[in-house]
Structure formats: structure tokens, C-alpha cells
């Protein structure tokens, strides 16, 4: 039975990856907004921001990576919505397949598509002077954490993908997720924020994730930030997964 489940996930992932390959613009547009922010903040606002000793692009990149994922999962929600809206979702669910494979295929596709977008953003950052002395293990840790974050946000995006009534509704998922990094340590240190804002910024997931990635890139000890970041991502992933699966089952009853 699990062999079948795997075959179904593979078959459906191939399909949905083909969708991405045939509209490569989605990978580019996923990256365009984060890249535009990178340029804007480094070359326009960056001069006025005091964020420690290093280059501002080094400070900024981790937050930009999270924004890339936040905008990328909007497409995952959109692809699922299109399946539901177009009727092919019903065709698949009336077939003798493992039903959850329908969601897993979109989740895996989202991970792959986001990864490509992230590589694109990192290359731009490198061209803008971003440098890190982090070794292989450091980069693997960053990839692992961003992957966990991507999985959590993708499962969250499956919910509007299943329930949205219109295309506009489904792409709405990205906006609050893109906004969250602004009220964190992603763009400016939290120290200069008024107390209530600061309290929020320091206790929301983005800050711990950004601080961890920044620390790894700068080869500095990340301390408890790393565990808080992993706990946030894992917790969010668990909650999003449970809610998405419940929405999925409810849709099919």
C-alpha cells in the first residue's frame, strides 16, 4: 500500500513539476519581488540603516530568502486551486489512488520550485557583494532550516488552495506572510523599535529564523536562536499539516 502511495506521489509530482517547467515565469516572478527588495534596501535605504558592522546585503539576505518562500508558496496554493476549480481534482479523487498524494505532490513541487527561486536570489545577492565564510555544514544547516520553513508555509498554503472561491482569494495567502519579515529583525535590528512592536518582533518566528541564518552565514555562534527557529518551523509545520489534512478530508466527505 505504501508502495502505491509513493508511486502516486511520484506520478502526480511529475505532472505538477511539468506545470512549473512549462510556466517558468512563476519561478522568476517568485524571485522578482524579493530581488527588487534586495536592490531597493541595499542601494536606496541601506545607506540610512545601521545594522551592525558588516555589509548591509549580508544582514538583509536571510530575510529576503524568507520573503522569497512566502511569495513562492502563493503559486503552490494557486496550482492546487486550479486543480480543484478545473475538476481534475474530482477525477483524481474518484480514482483508486492514495488521496493524500494529491496534496503531497503539490508540496514537493513547491519545495523544488522554491529551491530554484532561492538559488536565483542567492546568485543575485552574490553579484551584489554578499559573501559568507560558512562551510558546507553551515550551508546545509541553512538549506535545512529554509526547507523546513518552506514545508511549513506550503502546507499552510494548501488550505486556501482547497477552500478559496476565487483566484484572488488564493493568492491572498502570500501577503501577510510577506509582510511578517518587516516586523522582525530582517530589515533593521529590533533595538530601535518602540517597546510593544519590539516585543512582537522579537517573539515571532521570522526573527529567530533570520538571526539563525545570519549567524551561520557570519560564522558566529547562533546559541538558542537555532532551537527556537527549528521549534517554530516544526510547530508551524505540524499545525499547518493537521489543518490542511482536516480541510482536505472535510472537502471529500
Amino acid at each position, binding site marked *: 500500500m505504501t508502495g*502505491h502511495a509513493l*508511486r*502516486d506521489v511520484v*506520478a*502526480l509530482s511529475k*505532472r505538477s513539476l*511539468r*506545470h512549473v517547467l*512549462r*510556466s517558468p515565469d512563476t519561478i522568476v516572478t517568485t524571485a522578482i519581488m524579493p530581488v527588487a527588495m534586495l536592490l531597493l534596501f541595499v542601494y536606496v535605504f541601506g545607506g540610512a540603516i545601521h545594522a551592525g558592522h558588516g555589509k548591509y546585503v549580508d544582514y538583509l539576505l536571510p530575510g529576503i530568502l524568507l520573503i522569497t518562500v512566502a511569495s513562492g508558496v502563493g503559486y503552490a496554493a494557486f496550482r492546487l486551486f486550479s486543480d480543484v476549480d*478545473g*475538476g*481534475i481534482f*474530482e*477525477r*483524481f*479523487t*474518484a*480514482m*483508486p*489512488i492514495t488521496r493524500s498524494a494529491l496534496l503531497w505532490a503539490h508540496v514537493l513541487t513547491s519545495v523544488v520550485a522554491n529551491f530554484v527561486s532561492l538559488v536565483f536570489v542567492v546568485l543575485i545577492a552574490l553579484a551584489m557583494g554578499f559573501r559568507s565564510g560558512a562551510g558546507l555544514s553551515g550551508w546545509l544547516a541553512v538549506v535545512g532550516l529554509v526547507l523546513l520553513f518552506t514545508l511549513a508555509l506550503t502546507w499552510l498554503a494548501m488550505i486556501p488552495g482547497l477552500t478559496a472561491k476565487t483566484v484572488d482569494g488564493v493568492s491572498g495567502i502570500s501577503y501577510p506572510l510577506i509582510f511578517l519579515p518587516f516586523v522582525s529583525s530582517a530589515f533593521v535590528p529590533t533595538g530601535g523599535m518602540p517597546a510593544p512592536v519590539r516585543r512582537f518582533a522579537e517573539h515571532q518566528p521570522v526573527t529567530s529564523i533570520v538571526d539563525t541564518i545570519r549567524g551561520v552565514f557570519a560564522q558566529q555562534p547562533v546559541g538558542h536562536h537555532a532551537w527556537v527557529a527549528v521549534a517554530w518551523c516544526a510547530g508551524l509545520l505540524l499545525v499547518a499539516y493537521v489543518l490542511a489534512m482536516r480541510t482536505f478530508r472535510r472537502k*471529500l*466527505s
Partner: protein
Amino acid sequence: MTTTPAIEITGLTKSFGDNAVLRGVELAVPAGAVFALLGSNGAGKTTLVRILSTLSKADSGHAAVAGFDLATQTAKVRQSISLTGQFAAVDEILTGRENLQLIAELRHLDRRREIADDLLGRFGLTDAADKRAGVYSGGMRRRLDIAMSLIGDPPVLFLDEPTTGLDLQSRNEVWATIRDLAGQGRTVLLTTQYLEEAEQLADRIAILHQGTIIASGTLPELKGLLPPKKIEYVEKQPTLEEVFLAIVGGSGERRDGRPSTAVSR
């Protein structure tokens, strides 16, 4: 061929909130028949098909498809059916061939390329095989849709309003396709709101009205329910359909690419 009905429904009910859509449906569809479920919009046709194809659960009552109980043998039911929903459920970004191969893969079949090529040929889609389904005409899309339903040879096919929204020529193409499906031991349950469609295609017809089956039988049986016929002389005028088809040249493209001769019917 088995003697048990392909579909057997007793006392099926389904409500959405206060709205009782199905109020005790009783129906038996013999195996190997093309069975038309006739009803106006909102009669509950789609709800019934969704229940029979395991997409939705009934509130009460029993139903069996291909001899398997819907409630307890769901996996076996899914093995035995295929659903062609109200809107052609093809993947518009994939090509016709890829659509067919995908379904074959999901049914865990080997020799997927041969399966796809065979169906593309049978459904007159060979020339369009490597074009994206998104550029297909309505009729081609429906044909691809039905071809996808045949993969894995499920004994029971559900066609939910197969010609709604199609132009006349596409409709004729789809009718020809459905006629070809019959007589291979396969059971086809099609829903329609067009009386002519039921008359043209079905061996047996049931009328679903306000959530219950109010009549069921062969066309002559249903006609027998009416008062005895009287003979009148009416001058035969060509219908607009005949005029249209005569002018545009046949019922659209046939499988072999030659114009068909629907005009001479």
C-alpha cells in the same frame, strides 16, 4: 456478463443543510446498458453521481456499484468506476498524450505509451496528441476526457452532462463516442437535461425529479405512460439543425478526417 445490476440504489437521501436534494432514490441500472438519468437543473443528478463515484457520502440509504457496497467497499468501487465530470477534467497544461499516460500511471498500468497511442487513435486525437489540451476545441477536450475515463477498463462509467456547453458539431462528436462505448459490456450512466440526448443514446431512461425517481424504463415503456397516440399529418420541414449541418458540411470532423454525411439522414 453478470446478472447483478451494475448500479443498485435503495432509499438514498442527501441534504445540504435544509435543502433535501435526494429524497429516497430507488434505482437499478442493468449491467451493459447505457442508462440516462434525465432531470432539470437542480434535480439532484450531479449529487447522485458524486455519491456513486465516492466523492460524497449519502445521509442514508444503500448503494452498490459493480456489486460493491459504496459505504464499506469504497476502494473496490473506485477500481470499478470512472468519472467524467460536468466540466472536461483534463489537464490543460499537459498534452493529450501526457494526460492519458498520467491516468495510466495512476492506475498502475504498464505499457502506458501503447495505451495512450491506442486511445488517441480511437478518439481521433492522434494529430493533436502532442498539443496542450488547453488549445483543444470543446469537443476534442470532451473526447480526451472520455478517453481518460476508459483507461484501466472500468466496468462502470459515469458521464455527468457530457454535452452541456458544447456546440452542435462537438455534441455530435461526443454522441458518436458514447454510442461506440455501448455494446462492449460496459455500463454507462449519463446524466442529461436534454430529452433528445437521452432519446438518442440511452437503452433505458430514468427521470429524476425533486430528489426522487419518478419514472424509469425503456423509451417505449416511458412512451406507454402517455395517452394513446393519435395520427396527424404534419408537413416535414427541415429543422434548423439539418439546415445548419447542410450548410457547414456535415457533423464536424469525423475520426477519419472526412466530412460525415449527417445531412442525408
